[in-house]
């Protein structure tokens, strides 16, 4: 199994969720109110009061076979709206 970590601007979340469902992942988890720093600069909590919001952290545990589809669906979103996606290994307990 693989573990996919997405850290993305909150405004992207709805589209990412849709992409995950479309790719057929067995599940995912979302944490909001994530702040950070990346190519687009600093995202601080203060920005939550502006319309652009903070970041969200999405975790997906899925079969390696899904990664191709996920890459195809998510890469355009990430390059348009920002955020990062990393894959690691994970086995069910």
């Amino acid at each position, binding site marked *: 199994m693989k573990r996919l970590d997405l850290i993305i*601007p909150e*405004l992207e979340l709805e589209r990412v969720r849709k992409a995950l469902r479309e790719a057929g992942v067995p599940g995912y988890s979302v944490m909001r*109110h994530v702040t950070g720093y990346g190519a*687009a*600069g600093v995202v*601080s*909590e*203060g*920005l*939550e*009061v*502006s*319309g*652009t*919001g*903070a970041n969200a952290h999405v975790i997906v545990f899925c079969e390696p076979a899904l990664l191709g589809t996920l890459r195809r669906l998510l890469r355009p979103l990430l390059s*348009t*709206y*920002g955020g990062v996606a990393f894959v690691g290994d994970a086995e069910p307990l």
Partner: protein
Amino acid sequence: MQSSVVLQNLLSPPVLFFVLGIGAVLVRSDLEVPAPLPKLFSLYLLLSIGFKGGVELQHSGLNQQVLLTIGSAVLMSLLVPLSSYWILRRKLDVYNAAAIAAAYGSISAVTFITAESFLETSHLHFDGFMVAALALMESPAIIVGLLLVRALAPRNGDSAEKTVGGWGAVLHEAFLNSSVLLLLGSLLIGLLSAAFSPSGMAKMEPFTGGLFYGALSFFLLDMGIVAAQRLQDLRRAGAFLVGFALLAPVAHALVGLGISRLLGLPQGDALLFMVLCASASYIAVPAAMRMSVPQANPSLYISSALGLTFPFNIVIGIPLYMALVQRVIPVLP
């Protein structure tokens, strides 16, 4: 400009708490209002201002003056982005110029609310329909900004697609974003309650009325912190944008003053009209722009609207505009 007006504004609790928030950042204190508490206050303020505006709108009714004023406000939200774009395009690319222009065509509800509170503490009347103008100025500026991008952006490769996205999504974002919806919804609720449920309307008062001024003060403490943090981003923005962020509100306010005079608005409404023209959006427009014009740099449009224009209007703009109003607009008999 009468110094008493300036002092009266500067030494009122909302503005003082705003300054305290700015000061907290400057002395690097750890004072903060953690998320999502600021959201509670912004929802509360929108709901309350909409509700109260609706109640007053029901009492005053819709006459020609009301419709003319609202129409002029909407017109301003279409023209300001165009003229702003024309200026901004001298130094910025199409995307950034359009996004910033849209922000300045739209409004800042908190600036409007602070101006209302200023009028209330000065015992100057203003009309409930101005809230309708506020609500209706958010969306058109977004549309103009996106039309500018669509019409003027270079079309190379897929960037045309990236830009703006489907119009369906754009119009949805412009007209059904949470602040427009909550404002207009609360306005309608206020209107209906005033007409059909007077005892329900009266029971809202301690929440939407009594509490309001203190909640605004608390929220401005946080907005001071946020604005000061943004200000530090502006180093990247350069002198041109700083100049625009400080001069544009005054210029737009002056146009607003002229229109108010033409429309024969009373003093209170004239101040609010000027504030609508002078303020820039850091909520609805940035959200729409970030989604529809991802090529624009959010730190430019948010920092100028939130880090400069917003504090300028709160601290200096409102009393400045009031001083102008007192010179130009006759007191109603």
